[in-house]
């Protein structure tokens, strides 16, 4: 499902951009006129980062492993430079996945879970926790663009994201839980899984900053840092007591039509 949506979005972007490329003479000038100084960019890159509490809470004692996983972002932008200025602006639409896998050692980590069938568990966990995050977003960046030189430009501004599919799962293993709080009954546990996918927030927003370097006439290389401002879970979500923010670098190529 996810793959087919990605493919569909890529096709849509291509279909949208193909006429710009194909129709040279008359068509091109018409389009230029219609766009009135707006340029179209297609960008594709990889996202690397983490969905993480910031700063890391004291309960997290060690990150034992980290896997950035394979995350792809495809973006279509329209960009305009203001007359007689180095400044410009860009609006875009980006289809992206943000994900990672971590294995952490925690101590006295608060957990609270409610199950559909009425089961409810609250306690303090000491042991290991693995976390797998993978969320696909439709993101709309609204950016200011500044041209340092003909080959370099800087971009920055807010983005709005709508998550249409997300997984947040993992396991607590090789440790013990204290029922309720650190004074509660203790139970040793080899392995227990959790799934908070349903609790992920649909709307997220953040800021991004980045740079783009023109390698060839149409082809640039870019690197952006995207930083989530609201937590991936709602405020009243108590299973994860600290806010978790998606912080990802997006690195790839940009094609200017």
């Amino acid at each position, binding site marked *: 499902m996810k793959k087919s949506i990605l493919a569909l979005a890529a096709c849509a972007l291509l279909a949208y951009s193909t006429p710009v490329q194909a129709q040279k003479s008359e068509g091109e000038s018409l389009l230029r006129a219609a766009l009135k100084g707006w340029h179209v960019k297609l960008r594709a890159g990889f996202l690397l980062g983490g969905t993480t509490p910031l700063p890391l809470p004291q309960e997290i004692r060690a*990150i034992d492993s980290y896997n*950035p996983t394979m995350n792809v972002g495809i973006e279509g932008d329209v960009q305009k430079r203001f007359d007689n200025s180095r400044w410009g602006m860009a609006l875009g639409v980006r289809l992206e996945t943000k994900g990672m896998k971590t294995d952490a050692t925690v*101590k*006295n980590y608060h957990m609270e879970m409610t199950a559909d069938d009425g*089961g409810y568990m609250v*306690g303090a966990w000491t042991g290991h926790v693995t976390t797998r995050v993978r969320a696909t977003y439709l993101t709309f960046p609204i950016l200011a663009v500044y041209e340092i030189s003909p080959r370099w430009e800087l971009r920055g501004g807010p983005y709005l994201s709508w998550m249409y599919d997300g997984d947040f799962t993992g396991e607590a293993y090789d440790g013990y839980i204290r029922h309720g709080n650190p*004074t509660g*009954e203790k*139970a040793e546990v080899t392995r*227990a899984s959790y799934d908070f996918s349903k609790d992920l927030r649909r709307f997220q927003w953040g800021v991004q900053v980045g740079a783009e370097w023109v390698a060839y006439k149409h082809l640039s290389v870019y690197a952006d840092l995207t930083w989530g401002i609201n937590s991936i879970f709602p405020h009243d979500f108590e299973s994860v007591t600290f806010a978790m923010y998606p912080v990802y670098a997006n690195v790839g190529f940009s094609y200017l039509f």
Partner: protein
Amino acid sequence: MKYLLPSGLAVAAIALSFASCIRDEALNAECDITGVDSAWVAGIRQQGIIKGEPIVTNESVRFIKRRGDIDCSALAPLFTLTPGATIEPANGSVRDFTTPQTYTVTAEDGNWRKVYTVEFGVLEASSKYGFDHAKLDASRQYQEFYELQGNLAKPDTARIWASGNGGYAFTGMAKSPGEYPTTISPDGRTGSCARLETMDTGSFGAGLNMHIAAGNLFIGEFRTASAVLYPRRATRFGLQLVGSRPVSLRGYYKYKAGETFTDELGQVRPEMHDTCDIYAVLYEVDPDNFEALNGDDVLSSERIVSLARIDNPGEPQEWTYFDEPFKPCNGKAFDYARLETDGYAIAIVLTSSRQGAYFRGSIGSVLYVDDLELVYEAD
């Protein structure tokens, strides 16, 4: 290449930022009495003050006095604690344990503390169990049965019965003490009785391959800490409370099996039908190193001396009397000399699902038991 370099740098930067963000470890928040100094325990056992091992729970430490008339007015126990925790009064303080004493353990971080009751009680080798008394456990979540003993004008309470309720508490399925597998019921044959029901453990139980929790009640100790990891080792059956040579186990029960039998994988097994279990087992122990039988070996250990069990309890809907003789096992005969040195332990075990220890049974199976009597040979 141009792409690989920045992405490589990004990974390195992220990895570095994670590593550098680990903050100083918080001080311990736990405040447990983790045990009693073993040399000290061995010392008072050799002096004939106690028998067996102390029973350490989340909020109490209980020593079993050898006899009611033993002097416990000046004892100075040594407890082991969570690292960094402190105890008040201090370890080694001489105190009068004629009545239970309290100790406060404070966690290293100073934010959490727990009050422990430490008692030296005599557990009488009683023979009648009416299941007329229960109170809430220290966390006020579920009921625990207790017995009255000694001077009936001012009786002591004795907690010899244990159940798996402490494990069920973790599932969060019970919203009140009455919704646990093991409860006191007012519908007794005389007074109140024990009511055991096999219950659904919900998704948290299912996630651990423990789909059901059978109601259980037994003489012994339930170690909640092992309830998830080694559930059959959590049920430690038996205490050194043997009055004489046990002859038979008798009492009243009624039982109704639940409709749908499920196995340890939660699969429905239409060919199976649930049944309850009521038995008493007498076994040999090393007085200096008490080791209880547990769910793995309570019916198979070579230490078993004799066993009284209702082989085929059926499903009587009205109070039904039973009287099962103790039958010798493993070719062993009862030895009164061994009894004098606390070399025997006895357990009575009741459960609403015979294979409940293996998480096989029917949700909704209900067993009522009342007026149990352990009949000892007259001196």
